[in-house]
């Protein structure tokens, strides 16, 4: 099993890096330039897959948070934390590429456009998740508080999306994609999704390892945590 893992993991990441390289090369050399927006539009091929994967990571946080509140098993908490970390990281890339796109296309690093506002709000939602985890010392309470926040935060996302759409959008950017562009986009999705999935899984095992090596005696690991009213460890 270990030998399979030792082969699989490097192969996985090599493929991911290779696909990224191929995608960049293809986009710069082959993909047609979009008429109205110019070369900078190609940043979209990185921006959109990362944005979608950010959302997927947030979904994982939600599912893991619900799972934890329901079963009170620590591994759900590990997964939620892992996915949240990746969500924030990917959202940082969404923000950065979005801002660079904005600077190039409209001359400003920041506007309160729907897209940027939404990206910022999403970023803040999950950064707060991470800080909540750093702010609570007790392991059991931290897990409960994070889980409750994780559930509420994800349910908030569509509402944030709807409200961000009310922000003034002086520069509407919806374009139809030529087939070559759709192909390029599809190609970019693969390494980005592989990376997102891979990082969540790797982080999950990292958190689990850290928790297991610093935990109290064994019984805590596999049994549901016993919590008193309002979440204190009973």
């Amino acid at each position: 099993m270990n030998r399979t893992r030792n082969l699989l993991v490097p192969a996985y990441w090599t493929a991911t890096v290779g696909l990224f390289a191929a995608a960049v090369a293809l986009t710069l050399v082959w993909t047609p330039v979009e008429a109205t927006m110019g070369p900078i539009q190609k940043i979209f091929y990185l921006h959109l897959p990362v944005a979608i994967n950010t959302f997927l990571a947030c979904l994982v946080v939600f599912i893991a948070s619900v799972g934890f509140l329901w079963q009170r098993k620590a591994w759900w908490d590990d997964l939620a934390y892992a996915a949240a970390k990746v969500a924030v990281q990917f959202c940082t890339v969404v923000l950065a590429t979005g801002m660079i796109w904005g600077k190039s296309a409209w001359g400003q690093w920041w506007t309160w456009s729907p897209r940027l506002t939404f990206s910022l709000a999403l970023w803040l939602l999950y950064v707060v998740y991470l800080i909540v985890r750093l702010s609570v010392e007790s392991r059991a309470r931290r897990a409960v508080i994070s889980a409750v926040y994780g559930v509420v935060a994800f349910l908030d996302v569509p509402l944030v999306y709807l409200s961000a759409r009310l922000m003034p959008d002086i520069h509407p950017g919806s374009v139809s994609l030529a087939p070559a562009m759709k192909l390029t986009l599809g190609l970019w999705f693969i390494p980005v999704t592989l990376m997102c999935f891979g990082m969540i899984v790797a982080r999950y095992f990292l958190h689990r390892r850290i928790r297991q090596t610093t935990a109290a005696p064994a019984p805590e690991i596999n049994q549901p945590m016993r919590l008193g009213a309002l979440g204190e460890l009973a």
Partner: protein
Amino acid sequence: MTRTISHIFLLAGKDLRIQARTRHTFGLIAVLGVLIVVVLGLGLGAQAEVRGFGATAVLWVAYLFSGVLCFEKTMAVERNDDALAGLLLAPIDRSLIYVSKLVTNLALMAAVALVVTPVGVLFFSFDLSAAPGTFAGIIAISMVGFAAVGTLFAAVVSSSRLQGGLLAMMVFPITLPLVIVSTRLMTAVFRDGQAVEASTVGVLVAFDAIFLAVSWVVFEWVLEV
């Protein structure tokens, strides 16, 4: 059903009666709210661009900060003398604890809004006469959603070793949609003279509905072992 309602009033009534007698929490949060408006007014109030409907953003800052403090305190009341244990032993549905706290919080927030809003309207020369009912309605709907989330988080975070600012940090990003939608509605109505769009108000109502329901359910899970 009537038993449920009477239980809610019993619990909320207890909290509010304490408030009425001591005016402790209310005094604190009302003064905080006013101070925030004053500080922002000093800094921003003189500028023409911020005058008028800019008051709505300032008011929201005041509501958010005083609201978070309010939620913390109404939950903290139960820490004294193990009052929470007594509550949990009482023969009432546990989710009603959430509802009663929510009612208490809403009552307090309404009282604070009655004090702070006129101050904001005054300092920022916000002309409400165009649509005072709309203004009140939007604020009221937003408050419900705000208190729904805040009450839940305050319950979860309630602890003797509370890290300062934790509750505020959790509440603010979640309630961004309320702030965005209500300020944009105000801008549309008071600056641009447009009618209120039902779909926009719908976002506020959806927020309230979703988070009231979610908080009710999650509260149960958090209180149970």
